[in-house]
């Protein structure tokens, strides 16, 4: 069983976000890029499936320009066997999904594992687009995934709980915790990642559906009003008459 894990290269969760070029571009100054946390869960589970003999091969895939290669190398260090970078800026979800579907088809993958959503644009749509393009089924957000033969048992988060599903390969999944624990690359992993194959392919063309015009930051908070720990009644009346939320 071959797994394709789709990873994003996104600002570290602690990054301060700011924009340049007249608010049309993310300012990468001082930002560290990481594997998207949800994608990292997908990758970790894929590695476990290989370790337990359920999967034979893991390919990490990113649609991005050359600056994402450090993040792709990290995926190789964590345990992907090889990697593909589709050489294009991920301009919109439809474009990205088209590239992923193309790779999934031509590489005969059985399971496409993604994150529940990317943490930069938080769209949460690429997995469903890919499934529809391939004519496969998709399950998201997945909290648990096991495979016996070609049958998968999955638990999916629903509001206030979870549901249990049975599905067949081929399948696309969007992953979240607690599907697996994030893996930290070992020294050996980092060494071997240097020699694993990272293939760069050119994108397939497609029309763009969503155009980002500009960015803005939320207005700053006006500051915290403190209430004495012995005067909780004062908080109650502020919430009632000033904030009007209770």
């Amino acid at each position, binding site marked *: 069983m071959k797994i394709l894990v789709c990873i994003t290269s996104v600002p570290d969760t602690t990054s301060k976000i700011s924009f340049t070029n007249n608010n049309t571009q993310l300012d990468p100054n001082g930002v560290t890029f990481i594997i998207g946390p949800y994608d990292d869960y997908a990758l970790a589970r894929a590695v476990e499936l290989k370790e337990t003999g359920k999967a034979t091969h893991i390919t990490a895939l990113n649609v991005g320009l050359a600056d994402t290669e450090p993040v792709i190398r990290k995926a190789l260090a964590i345990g992907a066997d090889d990697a593909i970078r589709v050489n294009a800026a991920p301009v919109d979800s439809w474009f990205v999904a088209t590239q992923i579907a193309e790779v999934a088809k031509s590489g005969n993958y059985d399971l496409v594992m993604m994150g529940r959503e990317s943490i930069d644009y938080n769209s949460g749509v690429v997995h469903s687009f890919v499934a529809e393009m391939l004519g496969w*089924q*998709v399950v998201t957000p997945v*909290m648990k995934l096991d495979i016996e033969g070609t049958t998968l048992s999955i638990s999916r988060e629903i509001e206030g*709980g*979870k549901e*249990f599903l049975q599905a067949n390969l081929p399948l696309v999944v969007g992953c979240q915790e607690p599907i697996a624990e994030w893996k930290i690359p070992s020294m050996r992993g980092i060494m071997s990642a240097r020699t694993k194959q990272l293939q760069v392919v050119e994108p397939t063309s497609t029309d763009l559906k969503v155009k980002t015009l500009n960015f803005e*930051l939320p207005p700053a908070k006006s500051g915290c009003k403190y209430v004495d720990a012995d005067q909780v009644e004062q*908080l109650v009346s502020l919430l009632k008459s000033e904030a009007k939320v209770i």
Partner: protein
Amino acid sequence: MSILVFIEAAEGSIKKSSIEAACYAKAVATQINSQVTALVAGEASEAEIQALGKYGVEKAYLLEGDPFKNFAIAPVSAALTQAAKSCSAKVIIGAKSNLSDAVLPRTTAALKASMTTNVVSLPSTNGGFEVKRSIFTGKAFATVKLESDIKVLSVKKNAIELSESPVSIQVEKLAVTLSDADTSVKVTGQEKATSAISLPEADIVVSGGRGLKGPENWSLVTDLAKTLHAATGCSKPVSDLDWRPHHEHVGQTGIKVSPNLYIAIGISGAIQHIAGINASKVIVAINKDPDAPIFKVADYGIVGDAFEVVPKLTQALSKI
């Protein structure tokens, strides 16, 4: 030509966020001179369906049959696609939820439409179709332009105020043809906290962090929540430690909430937690450390020991 709204219902009632989506749909319909059709997924009582008319929904499609019962993703997506075709939908709107997250993009792809999520305000429709959405988990906003003929929007909670614009509603059963593939993923069971107030839907959320020391102390949180008719949430370590279930985990890697009031108790306010709460209207922090970063984003704060402050607060609130 129509505006189609995706309505979710369970145990007879329509979700409040779906009513918000209906109001959003009505506002868009007014802007572009169209009318609102709804697809109702799940069980809604006759009265609840009729009540959609109050918010400007002129027609509701209902679904019948087993494949739709468990909100299975593919059948519901197929139904939404069918509904969109039947009413010649120009814009499809849903409230963000675990179900709509899975259903709307499938329909989008089937219709070759363009879609955007986490929408926080009404579109501008002069010339193009532009909307503002929340990105970087609430740390920023983007204005995007949807280029296809059909547009699909997933709307964040509190993006619009509820408002009434009553019309009489016509109800129709929607016939949907499902392929074998659509029913190939089987729902085999469900585990759900029954009486609890839904976290993403709640107007008030009370959350506890590692400062509460252990699951045995959670009555502090649940008692306060009960008094306020609030949902309960927690920080990531709390759910990682299994003090609370995962569906209560709030933050960057958990549920993103945008209630009117968020109360954080014994939560330090790590940036990843803030990412999930910064769209809240009002944030209250209770923490014994005056330097805890949570106070930087809080509107109201109490520096003190949660074990003393919270029971007093619960008591004071129960008197109003």
